[in-house]
Structure formats: C-alpha cells, structure tokens
C-alpha cells in the first residue's frame, strides 16, 4: 500500500478511540443536550457584549426593579439596568474566569501528581503532604483567604481559584499514576529503554486523561460556584461588573419585592453547574463504557 | 450398585437478545452411590449449566426445557421450591471454583459455615461453632479450633477451599457437585484437596460429580468420566476405558492435547468451539473431526451402548446396541 494511504489509515485508527467515545456521548441525549446548552453559553461569553440590547452599565432609576416585559425580557435590576444585557455580558466573567482557572488548576495539579506518582519517595511525600494540608480547608475558605491575600483583579482571582482547586487533581493523578505504573506495559516500555519523561507523557497521561477530563468538568462547576460566591461576598469581582454571582448579591435585598433580580442570575449559574455535572457524567460513560451505571 | 441420580434427556436453553443458546441438549447419565463421576468439557461445553440444573438454580434467561432429574427416585424438576430448598445444602451440596466469591470477607469463617446448620436446623449460629471445629478437623485445616474465628483474608487459598468443602459436608450429603474446585489452586494444594475429596467419599459414602476442563486431572480422581462437547454428551466410560481406549474422536483429540512429549510440538484441536446459538447441524464436533463422514453433519449422532459405556458417534454404528 502507498505510504500516503497507510498514513491516512493510521491516523484514522488512532482517532478511532475518540470518534467512538464521541458517538457514545451523542447517544446520551441528556448529556448531549446540556453540552449544547453549555455551548450556547460559551458563545454568549464571547459575543455577549456585541449582542446585548442595552448597555449593561447604564443606570436608569426610573425603570428600576421592573419584572420581565417585552422591552426588557429579563426585567431590570435595582438600578434600572437591563438584566438580559448584564447576563449576556457577565457570562464572560463568570464562565471565562472559571474555565481559565480550571485549566490552570488542572495543568498544575496533573503535573505535580504525575511527578509524585512516578518518582515516589521524597517528592511524593512532600507534594502529598502539601496537598493534604490544602485539602483540609473547605474550598470556599481557601478561596476567600487567597483572594484577600492576592488582592483585586482578574489575575488574582484566577490564581486564587487555580490554587484552591489544583490539590484534587494532584491527589487523583498521583493515585492513578501509582496504579498505572505497576501495569506490565509500563514495564515493557522500560525494557525498551524508554526514558521516564517519555513514559509519563506517552503512556501514563493518555491513560489517565479520561479520568482527569471528567474530574475537570465537575470542577468547572465548582469553579463557577467559587467565582460567584466570591463575587457574592464582595471579593473577587466587584460591582458594577455584571458577574452573575455579584448580581445575586445585589439582588439579595429585593427577594420579596423583585425576586427576579437575584433569581435569574442564580438560575443561569445553576444551569451551568448542572450542565457541567451532567456533561461530566456523560463524558465518563462515553470514555469508559465499562463503568456500569447503578441506576 | 444403587443409582443415586438419573438424568434423562435434560435440555436447557438460555434466551438472550442475540438468540437462543442451546446450552444443554438431551443430556443423559447415571450416577451411582459412592462414585466419583468426572465431567470433562471446555468452556461452552455446558458443564456448569449442568451443575446448576441439578441444583435447580437455573434462572431467567435460562430455562429447563425438558428432561428428568431423578434423585433417589424423585424427579427434582417436579418438586416445589420449598421441597427443593430442603434438599439443597443438605442432601445435594455444591463446591465452587473461587472461594473468594463465596466467602463474605466481613464475617468469621466459622460463623459462615455455621449458617448451614442454622438454615436447616434453626437456632443461632453460635450453637454450632463446636460442630464447625469438628468439620474443620475433618477437612484437615490445621489448628481447627482457632481457625473457626478467622476471617477469610487470614486464610490461604487452599484453606478457604477447605472451608467451602466443610460447608458442603456439614449434613453428610448424598451428592456433592464440585465445579472446578481446584482450578485456582497450586498443583500441590490441588493434590491435597483431591485426596481430601476421596477421603470424604470413603467416609460418608457421598457421590461426587467433579466438573473440570482438565481431563488429566479427572483421570486421576474419577471412577467414571463423562465427556461433554458443545452442550451434548460425547462419551461416558470408566476411567481406564477413557484413558486407554477412547472411542469418541473428541475424547481422542482431547487426550492428545493433554499429552506432553519430550521436545515435540504441542497439539491443539484445530478450529474452535461452535456457537451454541447456531450450532452446526448433526454432530456438533463434526466440523473439527478428523474422522467425520458425510452423515455426521446431517444427523444427530446416535447413542451407542457398549456394556457400561456410552458413546454418541456415527462411526460406531453397528457396534453394541
């Protein structure tokens, strides 16, 4: 066979694992639907400011606290700002920051976990003790402490959340790495003279990838809650920035008179977190079909 | 010699979404009091299904389609579940392959064995612990008194299997069905367990149906051997007859694959075990049989009786009855 043809067949074969996983994922209607919803939210995060009907910062006290109407499909908040526009623009803050934090946290965490699990000994002990200490704190407390310490601004916020979340990845990665390292195919790789770094990235990482991705999707949900909670508490992103969490905070005082101000951003947050959890479940089932469903 | 078990034309099917699995078809054999009958067969031969059928443990999607299982004159297939429960664990008991799956890791082994007494005689398991220690002595567990209080993880594989065996002899059963009881054990431990089963047979007069994929093992322990292939009986004969004068081509091939000769190629039967959903018509071994003739793939092989022996093969037509 011609080399080009063979190359094509090979690359198709290599992709087959993911192609089939995607097919399995699509069969899960619920997960697929939520993926679609999350997709829309992401698009909004990118194009939000361009499609917002009103200026999200424009105050109009005359039309404050109006319930949803034709003019303002999601109503107005306590300062008369259009909630729909604020939601559309706020998406990039709430979602953007959480996603970046998740990715950063995962990168740090997985790297540390791989090293700890592969080399063991002193490195493993040191890393895991640090992780143990960090995991002893409730995430929100840690996030608050870090946020206060690192000060204002988006970078500080991203750092705070990444640092809060990386320990879970480290522990997970390290534990699985310990198991994978014992498998015969790793021994075979050593017999062939493959170097440690090569073994880590060529053999161990792909085999733990599915678990990490699933964990990351669950953690994306947590991240969003952390960003929103910090925003709600007045740390992290401050008003007038339309971050969904701080929108809930501002709307707190009007729960009886104008509940939509707090509830609508709350609904969007819930939907996003729920979406990540369900997509995470779907990913887990698609990537590792052997894990049987109990229900 | 008394017959303790008579199985006549036993047929068991499994109804799966892919189709009907004809796991057992027209299986017939006798079992005499105090004898060890070896049942030999590879995976897919139906040997485990046979064990479950005799114990009436076949569950959906499996179904016993037809046949009789006469135990001491009564047809087990016609009994009520309650009557069957009184027989199971008492008169007919079973030993399985992997003791780990059958021993609960959170309870002491003595308590688990005592449950057998509890189930049939009432009371609490504590009343029976001394009897359990006795049983442990019979099955040659070292330090029996202390081991009654041991947990499964504290025992070796061989010891765990002895615990299972003690459960099965608690009520001095008429029939013990052993389904691959030594496959997971080292060869020296296996030899000890085999000796133990022989001992039990001598002591209690129990009959044993010993199921294994290892025909060479059965040649050591059995009085008579039944060879199964793809859900049907191929041949039944005494140990010596099977070893020195096998009649069925499958038996011959099986023996050959188990024979090791110095510095020579290993033999394996060409082809593979047929699917039981769509088994070949006629003799199920015909596609792989070196001696097959035309009729073999067209008609089911007849039952040929030669004295005490039974062979299901077209090639022997004319011999015996």
């Amino acid at each position: 066979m011609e080399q080009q043809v063979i190359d094509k067949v090979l690359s198709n074969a290599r992709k087959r694992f993911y192609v089939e996983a995607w097919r399995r994922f699509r069969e899960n209607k619920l997960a697929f639907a939520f993926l679609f919803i999350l997709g829309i939210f992401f698009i909004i995060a990118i194009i939000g400011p361009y499609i917002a009907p009103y200026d999200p910062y424009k105050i109009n006290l005359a039309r404050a606290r109006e319930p949803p109407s034709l003019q303002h499909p999601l109503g107005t908040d306590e300062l008369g700002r259009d909630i729909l526009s604020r939601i559309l623009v706020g998406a990039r803050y709430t979602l953007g920051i959480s996603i970046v934090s998740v990715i950063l946290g995962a990168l740090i965490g997985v790297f540390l976990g791989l090293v700890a699990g592969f080399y063991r000994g002193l490195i493993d002990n040191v890393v895991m003790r640090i992780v143990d200490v960090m995991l002893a704190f409730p995430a929100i407390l840690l996030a608050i402490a870090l946020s206060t310490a690192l000060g204002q601004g988006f970078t500080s916020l991203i750092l705070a959340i990444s640092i809060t979340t990386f320990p879970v990845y480290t522990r997970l990665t390290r534990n699985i790495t310990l198991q994978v390292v014992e498998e015969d195919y790793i021994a075979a790789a050593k017999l062939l003279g493959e170097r440690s770094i090569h073994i880590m990235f060529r053999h161990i990482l792909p085999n733990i990838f599915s678990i990490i991705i699933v964990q990351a999707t669950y953690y994306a949900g947590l991240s969003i809650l952390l960003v929103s909670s910090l925003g709600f508490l007045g740390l992290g992103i401050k008003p007038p920035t339309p971050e969904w969490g701080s929108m809930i905070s501002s709307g707190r005082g009007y729960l009886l008179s104008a509940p939509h101000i707090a509830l609508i951003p709350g609904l969007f947050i819930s939907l996003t977190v729920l979406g990540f959890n369900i997509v995470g479940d779907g990913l887990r089932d698609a990537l590792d079909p052997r894990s049987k469903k109990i229900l | 010699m008394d017959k303790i078990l008579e199985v006549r034309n036993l047929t068991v099917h499994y109804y799966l979404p892919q189709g009907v699995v004809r796991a057992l078809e027209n299986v017939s054999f006798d079992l005499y009091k105090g004898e060890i009958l070896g049942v030999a067969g590879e995976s897919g031969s139906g040997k485990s299904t046979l064990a479950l059928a005799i114990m009436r443990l076949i569950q959906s999607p499996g179904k016993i389609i037809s046949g009789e299982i006469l135990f001491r004159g009564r047809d087990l297939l016609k009994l009520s579940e309650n009557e069957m429960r009184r027989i199971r664990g008492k008169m007919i008991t079973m030993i399985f392959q992997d003791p780990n799956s059958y021993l609960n890791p959170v309870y002491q082994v003595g308590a688990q064995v005592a449950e057998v007494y509890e189930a049939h005689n009432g009371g609490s398991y504590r009343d029976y612990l001394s009897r359990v220690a006795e049983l442990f002595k019979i099955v040659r567990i070292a330090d029996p008194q202390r081991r009654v209080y041991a947990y499964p993880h504290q025992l070796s594989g061989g010891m765990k299997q002895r615990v299972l065996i003690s459960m099965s002899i608690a009520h001095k059963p008429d029939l013990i069905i052993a389904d691959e009881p030594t496959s997971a054990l080292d060869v020296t431990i296996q030899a000890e367990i085999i000796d133990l089963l022989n001992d039990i047979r001598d002591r209690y007069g129990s009959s044993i149906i010993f199921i294994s994929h290892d025909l060479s093992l059965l040649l050591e322990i059995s009085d008579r051997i039944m060879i199964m292939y793809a859900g049907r009986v191929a041949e039944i004969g005494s140990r010596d007859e099977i070893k020195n004068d096998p009649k069925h081509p499958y038996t011959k091939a099986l023996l050959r694959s188990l024979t090791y000769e110095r510095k020579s190629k290993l033999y394996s039967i060409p082809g593979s075990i047929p699917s039981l959903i769509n088994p070949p018509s006629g003799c199920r071994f015909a596609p792989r049989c070196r001696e097959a003739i035309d009729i073999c793939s067209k008609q089911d092989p007849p039952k040929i009786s030669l004295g005490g022996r039974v062979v299901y093969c077209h090639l022997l037509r004319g011999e015996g009855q």
Partner: protein
Amino acid sequence: MSDLLVAVDIRKYFPIEISLFKKLFVRAVDGASINLGEREVIGLVGESGSGKSTLGRILAGLIRPDSGSVYFNGEEIINSRRTIPSKYRYAIQMIFQNPDTSLDPRMIIHDILADAIRSRSKGLSRSEVTERVIKLIRQVGLREDHVYKYPHELSGGEKQRVAIARALSVDPIILIADEIVSALDVSVRAQILNLLLEIVENRGLSMIFITHDIGLVWSITDRVAVMYLGKIVEFGDTEKVLTNPMHPYTKMLLSSTTSILIGKIFKDPRFRARGEPPSPIDPPKGCRFSTRCPLVDKECLFNEPILREVENDHFVACLKI
C-alpha cells in the same frame, strides 16, 4: 557453554510495614543462582510464592536485586547498585503473563510495535517503520489489518502474539517468558507456544520459561530450575531432574502433577503433597521445606542446604542426600 547469562546469589526482599517500629520483609528471592547458555531453553518452575516471577524480572533488569549480580557474556550488568546499561537493554526482553495489561490500551498495535522498533533503530523513516511493523506482525501469525486495532479489539491469544512481536522487535538474544499462556484458554495455548518455540529455534535465541506447568517443562525445556520459597532447590538437565529428582519438593511436585507425560517421569504416592507452605514473610529457620518434608530431621531445622552437584548437570540443595 552455559555462560550467556549467569546470575549469582540473587536476593530480593520486599518490605512490609507492620507498625511504625516493626518492619518485616517478604523474602521473595533468597539466594538464587542460575546460568543460561546459548540456544538453550531453561524452565523456571515453582508454585505461587516461589519467587520465580520476581527472579524473572530481576534477570530482565526491571527490578534491582538487594544483593547478588548478573553477568552477560562474562560482563557484570546488574547488581544492587545499578541496573542494565543501555547498550545491553535490548539483549534481554520479557513477555508477560497477562495479555490484558501488557499492551498500552490507548495505543493502536501499529504504534506499540513502532515505538519498540524506533527505540532501537533511530532515524528510520515512517514508511520504513511501518514496513517493519507489518513484517513483524506476519511473523507472529497475524494479518496486516490487526495493526490498526486497539488491544481490546483483539483476543487473548492475539494479544500475546503482539507481545511476542514486541519483544522480538529489538532483536534480543534472551527471552524471558513469564507464565505467558497461563491466562489463555487451554485451546489457544498450544498455538502460541508452538509459535514461540519456532521463533526461538529459528533465531537461535535463549529462553527462560517461567511456568507452574510440569507438562510444559517436559515438553519444551532443555534444563529446569525448581524454586521453592525464594530458593532454587534443584537444577539441571530436564530429563535427569524429572525422571530422577533428588529434592523432596521436586518429588512432591512431580507426584502431585496430573499432566500426562510420555516418559519415565517420577511419581511416588509416598511423596504426595501435605501441609501448607509457610509464609514467605517469616520462613522457617534452616531448610525452607522442613515443614512439609517427609525426610525432615533435626539437622534440617538449623542448617540451610546449598546447591551442590550430585551428578553431571544435576544440582540439588538438600541435607538429606
């Protein structure tokens, strides 16, 4: 000459922590010496806990011994301080027991073999590598389209063939086969072994064949080493050891085997297995086999026997001979 690979007094202890202050060791290999010649197949036989797998991994350079050395063509390549230098990496390759875990589940067969080929021959073009992969896969009896599959899409036997291909891809001189057919269906074993033996013969390789199956030892090995609890108790020409064993454990092993061997293999019911093997964590003082040996006496409880030559190419470690 039997000096292609020589292992001298290999010891490997694995620590188990009982409490913060107490540490016990599993004495997996406790002073084993073995030598392998060119074009020779040596069997390493023992039951679970004998240390044969650990010894195999030490010889392959996967585990560093706690003490002892391994020499390749007279040059010391392994000791407690370092393991195989890269230039000898390829000389010794291993094939593992479990086909499900010896191939990276995330890689297609082509890449598994390509990686192996590239690790030895740098600078090959993509098409050259693929060409070699396909040639290799044909040598082990598989078709070209197998290389585009993932391991889970292959059967156990096919996976083992791939494992063999991988081991051969770097042109080794010595193969260590660790129970390579134990996890396979009985019907498939012969094919895989015949294939391996043909390859070993054609390429003039040497092999250490680790197994618990005496039948296989009889069939394919030139010499055999019998291991018990971390020590080699008997070693020598296969025919001599199996027809005229000297060590009581070897006699017990042979008397407990049920495999059908053509030839005058030792068998004596007086040496039938008895007793449980002691734990490798706390082996008895003196001879390890004393707890089960029919010849045991006071001397055996205090002195450890060492291997000595009892006839040409036949070594035994026993005080009672």
